[in-house]
């Protein structure tokens, strides 16, 4: 057992995923028998949100990969980052991510799935930006957050549409309703929104550029998030939704075109990199593209191939990332031109890397060979677009062979240069992970019954939506087209590897000549957004109170006017003046006159002080009306607020030199606006009182107030008991408003942070 660094955080970070992995093992047997396990509890029952988990072949395969690779990666991190001052924080983020990812693949409820989806987005933002002193890390983190977050919002919209279309938010129910969903009128919008979420998360072209940038994260993060788990969340989503959304023309072409293009495009970019971590980043993109491609192709053999390749890729890619992390840790560089002959200095790392790289190159008897064979076989068997699918996967496999050579053969073989003479093997905690994963790549290839029975077959059934698919993995059975294609792949790949420098130069020339650049394009999009924000801030946030009031009231008037106009909500408006004024006694008339005088004085005075005071008169008049119509609580509140407002404004004004009102020329406009708003409010009120008010809620409050809430003051009982949550929201707003105003008033004079004494 290697020593675990990093203190208690280190132990926790290793034991938690390991325990989860062991816990998952118990489900292997029932799931392999074709069962589904549902575990759940009501979360927000009134909104049909359940915290429910579905364990079937797909989620179990993902769960085992996430927890198993998670344990190895965290063990690796104890040495890679164990001495970092922020190491416990790193562990927190990584475990948070793991929780999000596990929740995502296990959730049976769409809304819960979305919440976990966002947990992975946020925690990956924190992990990519872990080196927060570097501007590059921060930019990459923000880019990943904005892109995948935007996709997440689209996904939420899609989920709500889907949930409404299906009448349920439970995946286990939705999965059985594929035909209804595909025939639904909202099918295409649902599909577009889901794919927007999946393509951004899984970095499909044209959203691919955030993934290579995310390599700014520490290497364990890259190995975990950006190869084995997070980026596969999009793939998971597509696989999960295949029985529901898949099998249609739009689905097929969207996935096959985007996936195929990403596959070839990413492979080409991969072999032109000189930083091995970047090579691996782009090959990850290729793998994601291939998975998308084959899920889109949708035949049973394509799904089977995708599930095999999912496991194959997770194993070798995590191992390779961890391997390059060790090399970086020991030599201080990841540049392919500076690394040579490390095999003699770091034998264990070399063995681990070589096992993984051979699997990546697809050489028998490794698991990667089986993966590639089944991809070819599925591609050749397709009835539509067979040439496109087989061609892209052939091109990608050739380039993968070359990339495997660049990542392992090139740095480890040959003679050790002087500069690397002092290099030595990395610590055991670091090479255990890649060695286990690389070893599994070989073991699964030699004994392919194991992954077939426990992982691939159940996952294929879950994605295909039927247990009728026969899954039988084998290394070699006969010389067929797929096998011949494999041999050609090796030959071409080997030639390309030898000519790698010339190819790199050629690719660089082509890419530099290409005017469309995505990463700088992203900056331009952000600049455009900022310019838009500045423009609308200048337009609306002038800082002049008068303008704010005008904007607010114009908006109010338009809102009310348009609603009345379009909804035709008023019906015949009867303003029966006689009935309105009938029954008013002298006191009522007195208050009316009182209010009217106050309002007129406010409008016509040229002194601010008089205006404020007469506005107070209006307020007190309104308070009197509340008293007369037996609403004492409201009246008291109104009176107090009025008093405080007048006092406050008066305090402020005492110190203002200029008490004369300016902007005389604007007054007609303001008067017109006031009249319009006043007229509209009057119309709305007349319309409201004209209809009978629904008294059901009022009656309930009146009846229940004393026997159930033990209070005789219904207003107060509503505030603190029946609708306490609303009140809580309101007082939170009060606090926020006060703090914001405080910050504004204080913020003007930074020198006056310290208060008192000097006055």
């Amino acid at each position, binding site marked *: 057992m290697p020593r675990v660094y990093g203190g208690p955080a280190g132990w926790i970070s290793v034991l938690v995923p390991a325990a989860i992995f062991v816990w998952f093992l118990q489900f292997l047997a029932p799931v392999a028998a074709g069962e589904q396990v549902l575990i759940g509890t009501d979360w927000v029952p009134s909104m049909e949100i359940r915290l429910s988990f579905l364990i079937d072949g797909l989620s179990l395969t993902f769960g085992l990969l996430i927890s198993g690779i998670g344990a190895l990666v965290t063990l690796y991190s104890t040495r890679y980052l164990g001495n970092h001052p922020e190491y416990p924080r790193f562990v927190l983020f990584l475990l948070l991510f793991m929780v999000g990812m596990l929740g995502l693949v296990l959730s049976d409820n769409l809304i819960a799935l979305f919440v976990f989806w966002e947990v992975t987005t946020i925690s990956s933002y924190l992990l990519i930006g872990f080196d927060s002193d570097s501007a590059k890390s921060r930019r990459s983190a923000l880019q990943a957050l904005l892109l995948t977050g935007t996709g997440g919002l689209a996904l939420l919209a899609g989920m709500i549409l889907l949930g409404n279309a299906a009448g349920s938010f439970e995946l286990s129910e939705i999965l059985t309703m594929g035909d209804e969903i595909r025939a639904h009128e909202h099918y295409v919008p649902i599909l577009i929104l889901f794919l927007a979420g999946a393509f951004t998360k899984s970095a499909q072209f044209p959203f691919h550029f955030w993934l290579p940038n995310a390599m700014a994260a520490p290497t364990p993060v890259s190995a975990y998030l950006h190869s084995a788990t997070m980026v596969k969340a999009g793939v998971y989503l597509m696989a999960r939704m295949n029985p529901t959304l898949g099998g249609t023309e739009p689905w097929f072409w969207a996935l096959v075109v985007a996936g195929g293009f990403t596959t070839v495009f990413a492979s080409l970019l991969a072999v032109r990199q000189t930083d091995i971590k970047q090579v691996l980043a782009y090959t990850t993109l290729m793998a994601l593209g291939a998975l998308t491609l084959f899920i889109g192709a949708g035949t049973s053999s394509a799904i089977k191939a995708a599930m095999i390749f999912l496991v194959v890729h997770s194993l070798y890619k995590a191992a390779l990332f961890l391997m390059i992390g060790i090399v970086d840790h020991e030599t201080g560089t990841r540049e392919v031109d500076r690394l040579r002959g490390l095999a003699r200095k770091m034998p264990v790392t070399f063995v681990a890397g070589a096992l993984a790289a051979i699997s990546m190159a697809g050489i028998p008897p490794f698991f990667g060979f089986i993966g590639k064979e089944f991809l070819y076989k599925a591609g050749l068997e397709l009835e539509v677009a067979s040439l496109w699918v087989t061609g892209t996967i052939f091109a990608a496999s050739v380039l993968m062979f070359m990339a495997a050579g660049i990542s392992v053969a090139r740095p480890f073989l040959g003679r050790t240069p002087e500069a690397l003479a002092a290099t030595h093997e990395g610590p055991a905690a670091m090479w255990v992970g890649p060695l286990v994963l690389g070893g599994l790549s070989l073991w699964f290839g030699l004994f392919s019954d194991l992954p077939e029975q426990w992982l691939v077959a159940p996952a294929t059934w879950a994605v295909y939506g039927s247990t009728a698919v026969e899954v039988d993995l084998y290394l070699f059975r006969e010389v067929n087209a797929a096998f011949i294609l494999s041999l050609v792949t090796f030959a071409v790949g080997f030639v390309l590897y030898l000519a790698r420098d010339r190819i790199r130069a050629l690719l660089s020339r082509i890419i530099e000549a290409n005017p469309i650049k995505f990463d700088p394009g992203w900056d331009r999009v952000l600049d455009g957004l900022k310019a838009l924000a500045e423009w609308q801030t200048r337009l609306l946030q002038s800082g002049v109170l008068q303008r704010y009031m005008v904007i607010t009231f114009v908006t109010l008037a338009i809102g009310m006017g348009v609603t009345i106009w379009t909804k035709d909500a008023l019906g015949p408006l009867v303003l029966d003046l006689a009935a309105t004024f009938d029954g008013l006694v002298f006191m009522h008339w007195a208050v009316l006159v009182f209010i009217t005088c106050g309002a007129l004085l406010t409008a016509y005075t040229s002194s601010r002080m008089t205006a404020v005071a007469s506005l107070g008169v209006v307020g007190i008049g309104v308070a009197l009306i509340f008293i007369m119509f037996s609403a*004492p*609580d409201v009246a*008291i*509140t109104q009176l*107090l*607020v009025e*008093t*405080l407002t007048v*006092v*406050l404004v008066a*305090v*402020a004004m*005492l*110190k*203002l030199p200029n008490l004369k009102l300016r902007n005389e020329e604007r007054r007609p406009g303001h008067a017109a606006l006031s009249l319009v708003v006043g007229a509209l409010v009057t119309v709305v009120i007349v319309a409201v009182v004209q209809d009978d008010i629904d008294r059901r809620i009022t009656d309930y409050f009146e009846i229940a107030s004393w026997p159930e*809430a*033990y*209070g*005789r*003051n219904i*207003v*107060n*009982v509503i*505030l*603190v*008991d029946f609708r*306490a*949550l609303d*009140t*809580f929201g309101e*007082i*939170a707003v*009060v*606090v926020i*408003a*006060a*703090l914001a*105003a*405080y910050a504004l*008033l*204080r913020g*003007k004079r930074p020198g006056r942070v310290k*208060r*008192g004494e000097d*006055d």
Partner: protein
Amino acid sequence: MVNSIILNAATRLLVALLLLFSVYMMLRGHNLPGGGFIGGLIGATGFVLYAMAHGPEAARAALRYEPQNIAMMGLGIALAAGVYAVFFGDAFFTGQWWFAGADPADPDDKGLPISSVLVFDIGVYLVVFGSILTLVFALEEEV
């Protein structure tokens, strides 16, 4: 700050009365006009008066705690009163009651009712009180 002997002298009496009255208004709120919101407003009025008579520095000193902290404390108390119900298996913000010294045989005898609802109202009082004073003090110091 207004230099007026009358205001100064009257403030001393009025502040105490206003604060007392504000607590009274809050406590009676469940059965009669009043409540935490009104109580908080009245209490704040007392300190606003004090700040006008003696200046915001003196009012801050008299208050002892930062008004924004009082407001946040109120928000916390209100939240705690809501969460309290969850421990009894009720929904968030369900009122929890304890009738101290009530005679179980007599349904009309509620004894001294103490409730999470009252605690919530105290939270509302503190929020309103603290928020208004945060604003007023900052404003008075500014001008």
